[in-house]
C-alpha cells in the first residue's frame, strides 16, 4: 500500500522531533561568546595576512555551530537541507571567486 510512495517518504509519522537539551543550548551559547572574545582579541594581535584568515575562520566556526545546532541541521534526517545550504554557499563562492579572478589579474602582464 505504501510501497514506492514518495508522499510517505516525507510524512513525519516517524519523525521524532529532536528536542535540544538545555545543556546543549547553553553550551553552544557559551561557545559562540567564546568565539566572539577570541576574534576580538585576535584582531589586536599582528598576525600579518593571517588576521583576515583567523577572523573569517572563527566566524565560519560560529556560523557552523549555529547552523548545525541552533538550526537543527545536525538532528534532521533530511539530507535535502544540507544540499540546499551547500548549494547556496557554493554559488556564493563562485560569485566571489570568479569576480576576484578578474580583479586580481587585471594588472598582470
Amino acid at each position, binding site marked *: 500500500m*505504501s510501497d*514506492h*510512495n*514518495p*508522499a*510517505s517518504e*516525507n510524512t513525519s509519522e516517524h519523525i521524532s522531533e529532536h528536542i535540544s537539551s538545555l545543556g546543549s543550548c547553553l553550551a553552544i551559547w557559551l561557545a559562540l561568546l567564546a568565539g566572539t572574545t577570541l576574534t576580538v582579541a585576535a584582531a589586536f594581535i599582528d598576525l600579518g595576512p593571517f588576521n583576515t584568515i583567523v577572523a573569517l575562520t572563527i566566524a565560519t566556526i560560529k556560523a557552523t555551530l549555529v547552523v548545525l545546532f541552533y538550526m537543527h541541521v545536525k538532528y534532521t534526517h533530511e539530507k*535535502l537541507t544540507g544540499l540546499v545550504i551547500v*548549494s*547556496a554557499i557554493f*554559488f556564493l563562492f*563562485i*560569485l566571489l571567486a*570568479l*569576480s576576484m*579572478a*578578474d*580583479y586580481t*589579474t*587585471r594588472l*598582470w602582464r
Partner: protein
Amino acid sequence: MATAVVSDSGERETYLNAGYGLKSWLLTVDHKRIALLYLMSITFFFFIGGFFALLIRLELLTPAGELVQSDTYNKLFTMHGQVMVFFFLIPAVPAVLGNFLIPLMIGAKDLAFPRINLLSWYLYIIGGTLMIYTILNGGVDTGWTFYTPLSTEFLKTNVISAIVGIFFAGFSSILTGLNFIVTIHRMRAPGMTWNRLPLFVWAHYATSIIQVLGTPVVAITLVLVALERLFHLGVFNPMLGGDPLLFQHLFWFYSHPAVYIMILPGMGIVSEIVCCFSRKRIFGYKAMTLAVVGIAVIGFLVWAHHMFVAGISLYAALIFSLLSYFVAVPSAIKVFNWTATMYKGSITYQTPMLYAFGFIGLFTIGGLTGLFLACLGVDVHVHDTYFIIAHFHYIMVGGMVMAYLGGMHFWWPKISGRMYPEGWGKLAALIVFIGFNLTFFPQFILGYMGMPRRYHSYPPEFQILNVLSTAGATILAVGYLLPMVYFVWSMRYGKPAPPNPWNAAGLEWQTHSPPPTFNFDEQPVVTWEAYNYDEIDKIPEKEEVPVAH
C-alpha cells in the same frame, strides 16, 4: 469510488466554473486559475514589448534617424528589452504553463504553497504597474542592462521606478521557483519517482534553482544602483574610486543564468511535444535530466562572456571563454536526443509539433552563434553589433517564444476544454517561422558587416537588410496575432476537448479537460515509466486511459 463532481444543473465541476465573479479569481489559490491570471498579464506585456519592437523596426527603415530622436530611440530599445525580459520571457512558461501543469503532471492537488503562488502574481502585477508608470512618465533609457555610471550618474529619466518594478518582478520569480522546488520534492503522487517525472517537470526544477539562487543577486545590485542614484554613494562611480565593471559582474551573474531561466522551460515543452508526436519515448531520459541540471549549474559559471571587451583582465576572459564552451555541451546533447527520439518515430505534424521543429532548428542556430561569441577573437569584432541581437533573438524568439506557443497549443485543450482550429494553427506557425527568419537572419549579416546595436541611424549600405528585417517583423506580428484571435474564438466555438485529444502520456491527460478544481477525481498512483508510448499505442483507439466520469 469517487466520481466527478456534478453541479445541480448537470454540469461537471471544473476549475473554470467553480466560482464566478472577480473575487473568486482575484483571491483564488487554485494554481490553474493563477496560471490564467498570469496568462492575461504576460500577454498584455508581450504586446507592450512588441509595440516597442515595432517602433524600433519602423525607425530603422531609413538610414537617417527620422521617426524619433536618438534619446527617444534609447528609451524604445530599453523598454522593449526590460518589458520583454522581465515581464514576458522570464515568467511566461513557468508562471503560465508551469503553474498550470506541474501539480497535474506529478499527481498533486495544488502547488506546495498556493497562497505564495497568488502572492507572486500580485508582486508581478505591482512590478508591472511600476513599469507602466515608468513608460507613461517618460520612459527610461539605460538599456535593459542598466550599465553604470550612465544609469547612476548621468541620466535624469525614470531609472528608479524601473528598478523597483523589476525588483518586484524578480521577487515574484523567486517565489515561483521556491514553490516549484518544494512541490516537486514533496508533492509527487505515489509511484511518481524522480525517474518517472516528465522532462517538463525536470526542466522547471532546474529553472527554479536558477530563479532562487540567481535572482537575489540582481535584486541587490539594482538596489545598489538605486541607492547610488539617491545618495551618490560611489560604489560604481570611477570618480569616487568605484568600478563600473563591478556592476557588470553582479548584473551578469544573474542575467546570464536568466537566459537559462527563459530557455529551459521551453526545452521541457519541446521534450513533451516531440515524444507525443513521434509516438516514442524520449531518447536518453537520464541524459536529458542531467543536461537540464547541467545547464543550470554551468550557466552560473560563464557570466563574464558579456564583458570580454569591457575591460576585464585577459586571464579572466580566457577562463570565462573556456567555461562558455562547456555550457553548450548539455544543450547540444538535448538537440541530439530530440533528433534521435524522432528517428524511426511515427511523426505527425500538428501545430505543436511544427513549433517544436521550429524550436529545434532555430535554437540550434542561435546556440551555435553563441559558440562563435564565446571565442574571444570573434567577440571583439561582433560585440555590441546586430550579430549579438540576432544571436539572442534566435534563442529567445526562435527558441523560447516558439516553444511557448507550441506548449500553449499542445495544452490548450486541457486548459480550456476546447480544441483550437488546427488549420489556422498550422498557418500561424508557418507565418511565425517565415516572419521570424526574415526579421532576424538579416541581422546576423548586418552585425557581421559592422552595424552597431542601439543606434537609430546607420550607413546607407545597410538599408536593404534593415528593410527586410522590418518587413519580417510585420509578418511576425501577424503570426502572433492569429493565435490570440483563434484561442479566444475557440473558447466559445471550439470543439469540446476530450481528456486526451493527443493520446499523450502524462498524468495531466488522465483527468478531464478542463480539470476539476482539485485536479483528479481520485489520487493517481503511478506504475509506469515516463513516455510509455509503446504501451499507450497498444491500446485499441477508442478506449482512452480510464478516467472516472
